[in-house]
């Protein structure tokens, strides 16, 4: 590549003052002696002037209209990560889950209580088992004891109660576990309520402070 050709390639950068000072000087020196390169440079200047002759159209949307249009089209944006969104979903669903769990435990307790009461009142073993097929004596040992209660005298009740405790029946582990579970759920729910109240109060204070600053 000739020296002149090399300079021609760099003439664009020279025109934009984007070369190093040394290169700028080199090309300036060359331009002093080369009419062809000077004409090239003049063409670049003329091109810039010509390009500026194409103005922006006058009929552009007014700034306020443009901003309104864009703002109307702005989608909802979540700056939270998937992990944060997951935690938030759990936080929001926590009371539903806790109330649901509590209600389920209470329902089981009520059904068990009714079953026990019905047996005490002398219900038929077979009839009860057909009504509550999911509760069998094999899976619920306490039921086996209860089913024998109909014929038992009141004097033997303490023995049955003792055996029920041994099996972990309704008066033993079953009741204890249900009591603990209900207490735990209530505690968690109250904790959630307290945290929710504290957060909403903090947010209210923040908003009030922000508004008063403005």
């Amino acid at each position: 590549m000739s020296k002149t050709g090399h300079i021609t390639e760099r003439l664009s950068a020279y025109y934009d003052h984007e070369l190093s000072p040394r290169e700028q000087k080199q090309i300036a020196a060359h331009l002093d002696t080369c009419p062809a390169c000077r004409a090239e440079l003049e063409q670049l200047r003329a091109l810039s002037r010509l390009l500026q002759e194409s103005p922006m159209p006058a009929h552009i949307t007014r700034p306020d209209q443009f901003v309104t249009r864009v703002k109307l089209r702005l989608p909802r944006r979540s700056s939270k990560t998937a992990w944060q969104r997951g935690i938030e979903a759990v936080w929001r669903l926590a009371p539903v889950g806790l109330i649901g769990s509590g209600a389920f435990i209470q329902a089981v307790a009520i059904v068990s209580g009714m079953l026990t009461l019905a047996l005490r009142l002398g219900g038929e073993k077979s009839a009860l088992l057909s009504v509550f097929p999911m509760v069998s004596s094999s899976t619920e040992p306490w039921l086996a004891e209860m089913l024998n209660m109909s014929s038992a005298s009141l004097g033997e009740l303490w023995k049955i109660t003792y055996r029920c405790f041994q099996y972990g029946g309704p008066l033993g582990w079953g009741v204890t576990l249900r009591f603990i579970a209900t207490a735990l759920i209530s505690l968690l729910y109250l904790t959630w309520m307290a945290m929710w109240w504290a957060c909403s109060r903090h947010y209210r204070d923040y908003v009030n402070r922000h508004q008063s600053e403005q």
Partner: protein
Amino acid sequence: MKTVIQDTSRNSSPDEAQKWGGNESHSDSELELIRQAQAGDRHAFGALICCHRERVIGVVYRMCGDIHLAEDAAQEAFIRAWMHLPKYRPEAPFRSWLYRIAINAALDVLRRERKTVDIDEIPLMTSKDGPEATMVQAEREEQIRQAVIALPDASRSVLVLREYEGLSYREIADVLGIPIGTVMSRLNYARKRLRAMLALYLEEL
């Protein structure tokens, strides 16, 4: 000779702007607006749109050559900017970050519309000269506009940022995510093409 177009900016995400080493410093008020907009404040983002609207429309207009398409592309650019704003880091110049989004939006809108410029859309010029001179001037402007649009996307982006926005080579390289050497070669190519296409008008100057 055909220049190899390697527009890496088309495939890169705006959050790459984080690694840009721009020299432009944000004013405190703009920085505050950016922070508020990042937090989801639409009013703050509206103020940012007001500040940068004209320049963004200018860039996309030069890229599209049609004001209606340009306004669509500018709106699209601001919507994309809103979506990507949480990832934006103020170390990078906001204007450059926005230019990059705007150029990509303009090219996407052009590709989608594939609209040819209608000769009837040439804006009427208000001139002291008579109607004939006005028409000649309008045709001249149209020819210039068409010549710019006829450039390949990659060269046109560089030319628009240099000639109309006055960005330095470094800034153009940052906006488009290309080396400075590529900026120089693309600009050289664009100017050569334009000089050939507009030779008639250049002789008159």
